[in-house]
């Protein structure tokens, strides 16, 4: 237990902050609104009759509240965030400025199309960039995030198969896949079967071929995969899936490694989502919003969901119904037109980088990951030998006999002032450390990460178990009791029970 030396519980710049509900004064507000004009009340019988219990604060209190809380967060703007599979790269502020442009931010999705031609043109432009970079002939822009894109891609596949007369029953998923893959396949009404990997961390082509058959609708592959490796059999994999009458779905979460260098369309992929909030630099915002457009092959294009933009003479048209589409859209994934504000940010980024910059970025991302691999591979246990793509996978063999776990190691990294890597994923290695530095880290930043990790390896080898188990000690909160949170969930604030009057 650490001793608190201050009356407030604050420690210098490390400030405690109560909940808004604990700062409430009834009647107070931070927003001055126009007067209520004289009017007839038309609310009817469902008029609210009782209070909600929202707290009242003033503007300075509210600003201070969120500023003080923000200081308890780590962020990519503050330092390296090497979460494997998450592509935490720099989020340019220009993107934010552009998304707030009047004429973009203040558009309603159901305005007459004559009044939003620029917005439709912007969507068409984004689509053009995404299709060109992936070498695919169509894109569905509306999915809200990666998992939503997976579901969109699978539904498109299912619609195409149904049009052929048989939706089939099974979706095959690579063993090392993200958990969203099987969850999405299930939501699309498919049974899920796993395809094993090879010793080398890739899909086992022979095992895949053996399982393929007339009941298999699709094979879901991540490429580069979650071990940070390129699936070098991808062309043969696609051919085998196609020969069996199925489709290839590629999880595009790791597209950052190959942007401008490899087009998934050249690899036989039929559908792939793009996480604009990873590859194309839109901010993750502490858990979204993202956007997960799905590029589609020729065989699938006609089945893409509504809505979509088409060129129409000199202008653009938003297709919102099957009748207008002249195709066979399977349905609608989301209200309105997709994550337009994220589209603006992603396009702003792509225009900034250009075809040359995007190609350099993927090379730098791969170079940075391999540099870390080189600097760490003798101290940590590299899961698969040889060069990696944009992320490098280690496992916990090097911690054997030390009493230190991957989790302990990560928590000690926090005290060193960096965000830890992804832990315990992918599941196919024990105690995974998945490190993705991204291209926006300098060599000095990579060296610092490598140095501090090597320092911690030395401490672990010296069996300083207590140090690791106690970590982190320098953070606003130490390790949190997750068991307690899950056993008796407290998911909202409740007013304290009234105290009994003192005798």
């Amino acid at each position: 237990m650490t001793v608190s030396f201050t009356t407030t519980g604050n420690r210098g710049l490390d400030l405690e902050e109560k909940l808004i509900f604990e700062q409430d004064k009834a009647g107070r507000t931070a927003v001055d609104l126009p007067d209520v004009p004289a009017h007839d009340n038309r609310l009817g019988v469902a008029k609210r009759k009782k209070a909600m219990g929202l707290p009242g604060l003033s503007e300075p209190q509210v600003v201070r509240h969120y500023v003080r809380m923000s200081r308890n967060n780590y962020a990519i703007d503050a330092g390296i965030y090497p979460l494997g599979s998450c592509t935490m790269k720099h989020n340019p502020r220009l993107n934010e400025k552009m998304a707030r442009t009047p004429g973009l931010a203040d558009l309603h999705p159901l305005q007459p199309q004559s009044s939003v031609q620029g917005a439709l043109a912007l969507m068409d432009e984004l689509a053009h960039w995404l299709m060109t970079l992936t070498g695919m002939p169509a894109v569905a822009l509306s999915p809200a995030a990666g998992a939503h894109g997976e579901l969109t891609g699978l539904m498109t596949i299912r619609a195409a198969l149904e049009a052929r007369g048989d939706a089939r029953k099974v979706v095959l998923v690579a063993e090392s896949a993200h958990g969203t893959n099987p969850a999405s396949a299930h939501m699309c009404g498919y049974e899920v079967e796993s395809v094993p990997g090879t010793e080398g961390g890739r899909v086992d082509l022979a095992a895949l071929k053996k399982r393929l058959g007339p009941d298999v609708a699709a094979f879901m592959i991540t490429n580069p995969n979650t071990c940070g490796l390129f699936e070098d059999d991808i062309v043969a994999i696609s051919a085998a899936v196609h020969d069996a009458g199925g489709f290839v779905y590629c999880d595009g979460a790791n597209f950052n490694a190959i942007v401008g260098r490899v087009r998934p369309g050249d690899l036989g992929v039929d559908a792939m989502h793009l996480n604009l909030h990873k590859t194309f630099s839109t901010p993750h915002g502490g858990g979204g919003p993202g956007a997960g457009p799905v590029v589609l092959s020729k065989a699938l294009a006609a089945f893409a969901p509504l809505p979509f933009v088409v060129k129409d003479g000199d202008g653009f048209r938003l297709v919102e119904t099957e009748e207008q589409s002249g195709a066979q859209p399977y349905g609608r994934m989301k209200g309105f037109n997709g994550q337009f504000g994220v589209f603006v940010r992603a396009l702003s980024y792509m225009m900034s980088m250009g075809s040359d910059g995007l190609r350099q970025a993927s090379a730098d991302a791969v170079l940075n990951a391999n540099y870390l691999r080189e600097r760490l591979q003798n101290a940590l246990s590299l899961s698969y030998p040889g060069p990696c793509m944009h992320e490098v996978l280690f496992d916990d063999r090097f911690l054997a006999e030390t009493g230190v776990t991957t989790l302990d190691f990560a928590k000690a990294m926090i005290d060193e002032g960096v965000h830890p890597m992804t832990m315990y994923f992918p599941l196919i290695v024990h105690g995974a450390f998945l490190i993705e530095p991204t291209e926006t880290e300098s060599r000095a930043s990579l060296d610092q990460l490598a140095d501090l990790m090597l320092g911690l390896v030395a401490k672990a080898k010296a069996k300083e178990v207590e140090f690791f188990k106690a970590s982190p000690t320098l953070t606003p909160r130490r390790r949190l009791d997750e068991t307690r949170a899950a056993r008796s969930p407290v998911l909202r604030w409740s007013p304290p029970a009234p105290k009994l009057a003192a005798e």
Partner: protein
Amino acid sequence: MRYLPLTDEDRRAMLATIGVGRVEDLYRGVPSAALLDKPVDLPAHAGEIEVERRIRRFAARNLGASSAPFFLGAGNYFHHVPASVDHLIQRSEYLTSYTPYQPEISQGTLQALFEFQTQVALITGMEIANASMYDGATACAEAALMACRVARRDRIVLSGGLHPHYRDVTETSARFMNIEIAALPADVSGNEDASATIDADTSCVIVQNPDVFGRVRDYSALADACHAKGALLVVVVNEIVSLGALMSPGDMGADIVAAEGQSLGNPMSFGGPHVGLFAVREKFLRQMPGRLCGETIDADGKRGWVLTLSTREQHIRREKATSNICTNSGLCALAFTIHLTLLGEAGFTRLAEVNHAKASVLAKKLGSLKGVELLNDTFFNEFTLRLPKNATEVVDALAKRDILAGVPGGRLFPKDKGLANLLLVAATEMTTDEDMDRLADGLTEVLK
């Protein structure tokens, strides 16, 4: 290339450390035929000046709500967002952090989510709320799937007052899950009684309040009818500000509330990104989709927050998860919670009052125009007019006069030709008397 820190010298030195000659050597697993040897055919990199110019060129071809009298609603509303909201959500620590998987260095986001969950529960009158969904329509679809898990039934009744996009997204989600959808016809009259449609296979009835035509209803009797037959009542709210003036869905007996939160803190932004709100009765907690933040203590006994009950989620449960949702709408939820904190009980109630009053004044004004009929007996900040001619043509004609008049029935219900003359009109705290006069005058002219 201002976003790339490596210099050519760095690159050379790092390649030497790795022991390869060129970066292409690191791509050795890629089939050589697929490895591009030059940039793809797209424009080269550009500086801020040029990018701003190109993006503003798109913006210049649009007519935005801040530049015209504006009356559209139907699930997205033009509200004022206080300046401090946008300032606070752009703090690096919120904007550029990941999902709070490392709670020791994410307490800011987690505490904000805990407060968000509490606020959503309070205004909807429900026991618990999750940390957000993508938007209202996908929240509605998730509510339908959840109701099927809870009731262990596979039929869903959709009210004719439900927003057509919500209906379509829900139908699409159910389509491949062997769930039967009974979608009632568009409820223009406001006389729909969905209770007769509940049978022994029905998992839930999904209604919207105010409904897509703007009507306000008390669904308490329908809730009782659902519960009597072992079904759930799902209430969709697509204008969240209405809850400042209306009885909450929880008070009506709703089991799940699926709502769109855009109206608080978030610009319309041509339809996204927005924030789905999702609140339920506590007994259904384990069947709830999406992330949850919960209170706990740290190793020193101090109060803190963590993401919890994650065994419901896809990264652990894979195909048995309650949903595939992963990234949600964190920053939009933050904007929502900051705006609602600024408002407080007094401000939120007042905001709702202003919205209703403006709409009431406008309805009276437009309803008195020749040939125009106000359909609603009740409404909050949006109502439906029946025009003497096709509303899409009227809206297009008014757009040429730089008036954004509302949402025509044909846009929402393209197949229902009987609704083509309907016009949905919304007013908010942004609507001025002058805007109302311009709409009334414009409408008079166009209908002449």
